[in-house]
């Protein structure tokens, strides 16, 4: 990546050389070996998931009852087969597409809605702030997963509904973090300056405040995306998420549970995938937090 050399940006009017922010972040991140390892693992997993249609994989839905519950390393099935004789490697990669995209989508939904609430509450303050944040308090009053389950009870089981439930449950984390940063930014001099220039409130909010809130949003995304992948998989595991024939890692785990005595590898394979992705995300998130916000170190 060229940004790693931190090419300085000339600001046009005063000629002062300021190091590019993105470059600094990347350089700081690179120093953290665990973060780099996490990034590499994630890149491989994402690449595999993206390339699933062109990889020489056996059809993930092709059953073969004669060949069921084959162990890891058996011929033609690198990771073995499940209770219907379906190839676990193929199912893992295709299931990963589902699990990862659902997790990422849930994160984007939660981040957009939560950040917007936080921005508005922090920027306008007063009664707006109060009513929005009391609403957030109510969401936080429920144990995390329990609220998601209650929402699925209302919406009905299914992958999309599970994703919606998980994103709603994560909105408070974004709203609180973004509100906190916004409140401190609103009191800063450059926002005063923008006000003095008679910029509209919307312009100040989205052009002046939002860009400076971005690090907070990114940090919160990096800490929550792992949970969201785990929890949507968890809902599928409970039978409340992905419904057949759709399968994600959670549904694979749920199916593997039935054969835990005879063929534990059927549940070990998808579980390891979730664990690997989530721990990589956590390593990366830790590094990202230190890189974006050195004060927290």
């Amino acid at each position: 990546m060229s940004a790693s050399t931190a090419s300085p940006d000339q600001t046009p009017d005063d000629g002062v050389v300021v190091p590019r922010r993105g470059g600094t972040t990347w350089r700081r991140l690179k120093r953290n070996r665990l973060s780099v390892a996490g990034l590499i693992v994630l890149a491989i997993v994402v690449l595999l998931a993206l390339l699933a249609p062109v990889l020489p994989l056996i059809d993930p839905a092709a059953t073969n009852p004669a060949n069921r519950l084959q162990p890891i390393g058996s011929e033609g099935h690198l990771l073995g087969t499940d209770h219907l004789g379906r190839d676990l490697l193929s199912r893992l990669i295709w299931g990963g597409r589902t699990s990862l995209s659902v997790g990422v989508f849930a994160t984007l939904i939660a981040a957009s809605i939560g950040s917007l609430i936080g921005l508005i509450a922090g920027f306008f303050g007063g009664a707006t702030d109060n009513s929005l944040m009391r609403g957030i308090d109510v969401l936080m009053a429920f144990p995390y997963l329990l609220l998601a389950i209650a929402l699925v009870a209302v919406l009905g089981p299914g992958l999309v509904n599970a994703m919606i439930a998980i994103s709603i449950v994560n909105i408070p984390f974004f709203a609180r973090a973004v509100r906190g940063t916004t409140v401190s930014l609103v009191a800063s001099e450059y926002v005063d300056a923008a006000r003095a220039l008679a910029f509209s409130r919307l312009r100040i909010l989205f052009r002046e405040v939002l860009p400076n809130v971005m690090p907070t949003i990114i940090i919160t995304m990096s800490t929550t995306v792992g949970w969201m992948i785990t929890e949507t998989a968890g809902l599928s595991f409970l039978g409340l998420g992905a419904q057949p024939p759709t399968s994600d890692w959670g549904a694979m785990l749920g199916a593997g549970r039935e054969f835990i005595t005879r063929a534990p590898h059927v549940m070990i394979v998808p579980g390891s995938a979730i664990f690997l992705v989530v721990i990589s995300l956590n390593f990366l998130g830790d590094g990202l937090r230190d890189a974006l916000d050195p004060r927290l170190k």
Partner: protein
Amino acid sequence: MRAYVVRRGLQVIPVTFGVTLLVFAMMLLIPGDPARAILGSYATPENVATLERQLALDRPPHIQYVTWLGNVVTGDFGRSYSLNRPVLDEILERFSATLLLAGTALLITVVLGLTAGIIAAVKQHRWQDRAFTVGALVGLSIPSFWLAMIFIVVFALGLGWFPTSGMRPAFGPSGPLTVLHHLVLPATALALVAAGVIARLTRSSMLEVLRQDYVRTATSKGITRQSVIMRHAFRNAVVNVVPVIGVQVGFLLGGAVYVETVFGWPGIGRMLVTAIGTRDILLVQGGVLLVAITYVLINLAADLVQAALDPRIRLG
């Protein structure tokens, strides 16, 4: 302290009100006719009509809410059609099983999390620190539903040390050892994620406190290292950890759903999953409400403990 208790206690009221409102709204939001949903698909039209009158379902939503709240406050959560018994009886029975599991898990979380966090901070940059830091990250990255199954494969099926599933009630006929024997695996599987969170937070709070001047003063006065760490540093570091322990109870109560499912533990989490399957909405509503109110009170308790430990909070 009394002023703080009153101030913090009063905050519970709007939150509880919001919680009841949201739980009540579940009924309005499910597709179809609520009375029919409550009674199941085999109910007669007369039964449906009677229930509609009882629950004021023919009246505007705010009247419905007040009627519902009045019933709930007096302990009437309705009758579960799938189990044919009062919802309150069922959820109390199930909740005691969940409390046994989550309570034990909380104990493991606190002991393990605080110990690992303190040791990691005191031995910063040494191997103990690295081991516990990586261990904590592993702990909070493992999905508890998967860990529960790994535990079964290794410790129940493989080594045969513990039973694969089932529960013995805490105050039942079986002795405390049998109860514990059934508790070890599910409670540990549930606790490790939360313990990872607590360990990381304890470590960073301890590191912050250990850098303070008063800790150096205490050390230079010749007080033993152990006393400096526990009496001077830990007592101040734990102030930040207590409210997060309260939050972790929420993760334990929620995560219990997975662990209960894997271990066949007859708790409220498993009941909820079954109730969603049978579309027994009253059971879901009652269960969610009971757990949420408990969680609100636990957070209140955690904040009060924090204030008791730290005068800056109760006076600020």
